[in-house]
């Protein structure tokens, strides 16, 4: 396992700027999650580290060594692709054994069998080992694809939305399993996801990408509690942070154009009147959809609330975030 450093990476695809001067340090043994919408540069970042694409500017270092001019094989990275990319002409077993048989590793057969069995067990695909890779369901393919990375001990694991097509239960299982593997083996992981629960529960660090730029890098709590912009604040939190005009609740700091309120930053029972539009009961929590002067707000309340739509509830911001007109955090 090793530390991964991206140093001023810039990448273009034709006329599109995919990454602009991205620098970050993934500490040895860290679990770094990259967040951002489609097109933010998450997958491109993984491709830069893997060596599948070469940056126009900047350098990638793994374990202190510059990766310039090194092929993916020479970099000793493992990658889980979003589209699974299982070898369709091979069985599940052969797919899992493929990286171990590479000229790079040349693992003895006995060890291959052991490794494959072990990984198949963890990923719950042991009963499918002799199936053709194409005869699997989407979720099974995705697990084989994860397994193909896990059979190795590379310097860094790169994972591109590895849990996206699994059902909820399996996703929860594998989330814990991946985290356990990472914690016990001390593996370095660079992980792309849209799922904020994955980001919050697994990450030691989160990188927020916005149109090819790394806008914030820190622990999940830092990103959640101290976002640098509206954009970064919107990446985490469910329900999403409410972004409203800064003066909706009265005086705002100088230069503030918008106020950002997460549910826990909304104190209920005092302050401004808000009308309840809708009550969503999710079981463990209940969401309130409120309206103040034509502005919609979503917050969370007691699971057993007696509020109903049409009721009036008083709310007041508490330790709110303030942003300027461009979306940058000012308080």
């Amino acid at each position: 396992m090793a530390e991964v450093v991206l140093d001023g990476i810039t990448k273009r695809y034709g006329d599109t700027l995919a990454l602009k001067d991205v620098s970050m340090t993934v500490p040895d043994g860290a679990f770094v999650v990259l967040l951002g919408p489609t097109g933010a540069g998450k997958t491109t970042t993984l491709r830069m580290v893997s060596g599948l694409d070469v940056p126009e500017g900047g350098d990638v270092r793994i374990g202190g060594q510059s990766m310039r001019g090194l092929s993916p094989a020479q970099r000793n990275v493992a990658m889980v692709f979003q589209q699974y990319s299982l070898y369709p002409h091979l069985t599940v077993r052969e797919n899992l054994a493929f990286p171990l048989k590479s000229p790079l590793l040349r693992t003895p057969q006995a060890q291959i069998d052991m490794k494959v069995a072990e990984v198949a067990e963890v990923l719950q695909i042991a009963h499918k080992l002799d199936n053709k890779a194409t005869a699997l369901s989407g979720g099974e393919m995705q697990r084989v694809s994860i397994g193909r990375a896990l059979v190795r001990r590379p310097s860094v694991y790169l994972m591109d939305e590895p849990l996206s097509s699994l059902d909820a239960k399996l996703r929860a299982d594998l989330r814990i399993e991946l985290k356990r593997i990472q914690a016990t083996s001390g593996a370095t992981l660079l992980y792309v996801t849209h799922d904020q629960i994955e980001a919050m529960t697994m990450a030691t660090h989160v990188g927020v990408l916005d149109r090819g730029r790394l806008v914030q890098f820190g622990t999940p709590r830092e990103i959640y509690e101290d976002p640098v912009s509206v954009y970064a604040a919107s990446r985490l939190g469910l329900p999403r942070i409410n972004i409203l005009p800064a003066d909706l609740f009265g005086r705002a700091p100088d230069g503030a154009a918008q106020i950002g309120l997460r549910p826990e930053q909304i104190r209920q029972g005092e302050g401004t009147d808000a009308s309840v539009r809708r009550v969503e009961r999710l079981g463990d929590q209940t969401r309130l959809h409120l309206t103040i002067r034509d502005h919609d707000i979503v917050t969370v309340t007691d699971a057993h609330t007696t509020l109903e739509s049409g009721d009036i509830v008083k709310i007041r911001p508490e330790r709110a975030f303030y942003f300027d007109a461009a979306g940058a955090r000012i308080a």
Partner: protein
Amino acid sequence: MSLSVTDPNPRTKWIAGALVIGYAIVTIMPLLWIIATGFKSPADSIAYPPKVVFEPSLEGYVNLFTERTRATEGMLEDAGPPTTWYERIVRDQGMVITGPSRYGERFLNSVIIGFGSTALCMLLGTMAAYAFSRFRVPLKDDLLFFILSTRMMPPIAVAIPIFLMFRGLGLNDTHLGMILLYTAVNLSLSVWLLKGFIDEIPVEYEEAALIDGYTRFQAFYKVVLPQAATGIASTAIFCLIFAWNEYAFAVLLTSGTAQTAPPFIPTIIGVGGKDWPAVAAGATIFLVPVMVFTILLRKHLLRGITFGAVRK
């Protein structure tokens, strides 16, 4: 492949079936006629009206593989009584065998040149097609068009320059020369067909192999080639059929050592009485390798021919 085709109604099915059978009869009849003629006696082969029912004879095949001469009394005495079945057939015509014919040799030449050029064409074609499909080649589109344009004129149009070139290089009447020539003619079509097949293989498979510790060439060999098997098989059949049947260049450029079967077969017809059964026998045997090759690869061929029309 999932096709959403509604089941045709019985009447449509019946008409379609009749058309297919009719077409099959039209195309298969000449083939059957050739095969049948190979087993006729020379007299039956030119009988009018044509004989559909006849006494089968191996005379054509024996004549195909032997050189014979009209027997004189002295010869028959020297040779003694016939010892093998084929000698007996020849004796019955009043002839004696003077040696084997050159058909076997010519047939072997066809096999060497046909399969050799097909193999070479596949080797070069898959690699070129892969490069065109995956890499940024300068002037790619122009190059591809140029490659295709070599196919636009009939190859025989350049017969004279090729003849002169071959003479200058000492490739006249050599196996190597014919293999190179057929490879050159087939390569353009191969590159185009194979590029289409390789384009359809997602690049992610190779990327996965690169990450898994393989080099670009190993990824090509272990991941791309197995998936391109269908395309390679159908392209190989096209190449083999061309090289196998080619007549004009074979007549022009070969005479002795490297002559293939197509220019040789017409010479079997002999002088004096036309030996149609021997010609038919030669044609029948000549058909076998391509038929076997096609049947072996047929499951790939169907998908290959419909390729591009059907989306996975």
